[in-house]
């Protein structure tokens, strides 16, 4: 971080005219000009965490330290993948009502023309394993789930609650007004578990991180092999025909 040293004299801000406020600070601010800059480069950033094993070695997943975090606690030798998978926390948010057609029955109300939602009616094609449909409903809201485990509907899949009486207005990218029913969603399913994560990491080709150096060729290679035999220096001196040869011969090896 750059450090800028500035000196200001308090006298510059003091009133020195004949009045009851003689000697008081009259300015409201002390103004300093500063220069803010932004430094950019395209160098890749990587933190190569040193291997710090957690000691003593554990044979079971630590449970007393909060969520296991290998960056905080160090790695555990031979730890299985399950050590790294923490319990899921609820993922929740809001969305639009675009998933309502996925759970509506094929019937419509003959009076209003609105689709009829039927509790516990599975609308998925794979109904042996999956449940996609309405869980419960009342006049205000519809609670439905997409892709839940048929044997554990409440804890799996993505749950949606669409409110019939609450609308959300939104301007889309084309500038047109879109209106949809307010919809909350939540899921207690983990985003990372043994089914989509392995312990073998992905790789990055470091040569493409963005740093490019101009190739340099050192042509003045000189290898001092030592004195090979007692006649070597004499032989070398025989090759010197001019004084310039003294400087250039053998890359400057021979000095007078």
């Amino acid at each position, binding site marked *: *971080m750059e*450090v800028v*040293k*500035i*000196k200001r*004299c*308090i*006298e510059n801000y003091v009133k020195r*005219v*004949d009045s009851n406020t*003689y000697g008081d600070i009259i300015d*409201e*601010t002390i*103004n*300093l*000009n*500063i*220069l*803010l*800059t*932004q*430094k950019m*480069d*395209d160098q*890749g*950033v990587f*933190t190569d965490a040193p291997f710090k094993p957690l000691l003593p070695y554990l044979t079971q997943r630590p449970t007393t*330290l909060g*969520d296991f975090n*290998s*960056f*905080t*606690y160090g*790695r555990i030798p031979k730890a299985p993948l399950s050590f790294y998978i*923490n319990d899921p*926390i609820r*993922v*929740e*948010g*809001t969305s*639009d009502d675009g998933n309502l057609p996925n759970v509506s029955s094929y019937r419509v109300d003959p009076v209003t023309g609105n689709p009829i939602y039927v509790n516990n009616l599975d609308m998925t094609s*794979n109904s042996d*394993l999956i449940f996609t449909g309405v869980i419960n409903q009342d006049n205000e809201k519809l609670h439905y789930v997409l892709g839940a*485990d048929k*044997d554990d509907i409440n804890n*799996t*899949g*993505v749950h949606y609650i669409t409110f019939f009486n609450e609308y*959300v207005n939104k301007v889309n990218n084309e500038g047109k007004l879109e209106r949809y029913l307010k919809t909350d*969603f939540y899921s207690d*399913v*983990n*985003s*990372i*578990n043994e089914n*989509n994560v392995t312990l*073998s990491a992905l*790789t990055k080709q*470091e040569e493409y991180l*963005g740093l490019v150096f101009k190739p340099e060729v050192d042509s003045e290679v000189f290898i001092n092999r030592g004195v090979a035999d007692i006649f070597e220096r004499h032989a070398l001196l025989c090759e010197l025909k001019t004084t310039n040869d003294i400087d250039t011969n053998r890359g400057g090896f021979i000095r007078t």
Partner: protein
Amino acid sequence: MATGNYGTIRPADVSVDDIEILYSFSPTRGDNSSDSTLLSLDPTQVLVPASNPNDGAEILGGMYTLKLPTNEFTAKGFYNIIIRPKQIRTTIQSCGVLSSSPDIIGVVLQLNDPSIDGGDKVKFENGNLVGYRMEYLSTNTNSAQKKMQNLFRIITSNNRVLSVSENVSNASAQVLSYSFDDSSDLVFCTLTPSSAPSIKPDILPYIGEPGQNIILTNTFFNPIMLEVEMVEYDDETLAYALYGNQTKSLDDGIYTIYNFDNEIYKQYVLFEIKDQFTGKPLYEVREELDNPDFSKEFGDITDV
């Protein structure tokens, strides 16, 4: 042959809304009496960007005027002022992959997290967090240091996503993944680096943990520290005493030093202390007057 530029330094045109200012005060540079207590200043109140002289509505870039309020910054001593990018604190909701690209891993943030200021929510819109730095707080509840030191990641993309359940052919082992949906309030951020280098493919590409508290910081400018030394006297005030106008009233012994605007800068009374019995002078005294005698204004005296 040019190898291409890969870096530059540009004058920052950052908005004052993206800046944080902290300061501490020390009466002397060598004050060891106490640890520095950092206080904060509102940048929108004290920092003014310079405007382009040809167009007042266009920020010049680089030059900012820091207007320190005199009710806080006129004590004699040293003010250390840190001007740094603004921090946003929030919590990782989840770490997951995109539904359509399972090899792209990222962290999921909640736009409506109450710890995010209302004014900062717009920064979580699609693409606005690119270039932000993500730093991590420790998940170790027993750790004395709450921050995971020397660890940060850079956000390379952020988009609103909706969670979808994956692996539905085996429902008991299903996982969540994320698909782009601008109506959602979840934000999927990809980070760099999120993969290990080819030379050490077995090291961990750490990007965070669900539930982990993080700090998001913009990288719009380099932080700087100002050491503002407030002094009572400088070269100018010393020049008042050397080269400024002065008067000495022979009647009442009032000695006045004027600044270069001929305003009373200092005023003293000069007198002698004599032995009360012999009348022999013992001391010559110059004593500063707290309340100046304004009848000794330079203009009044020299007009006589």
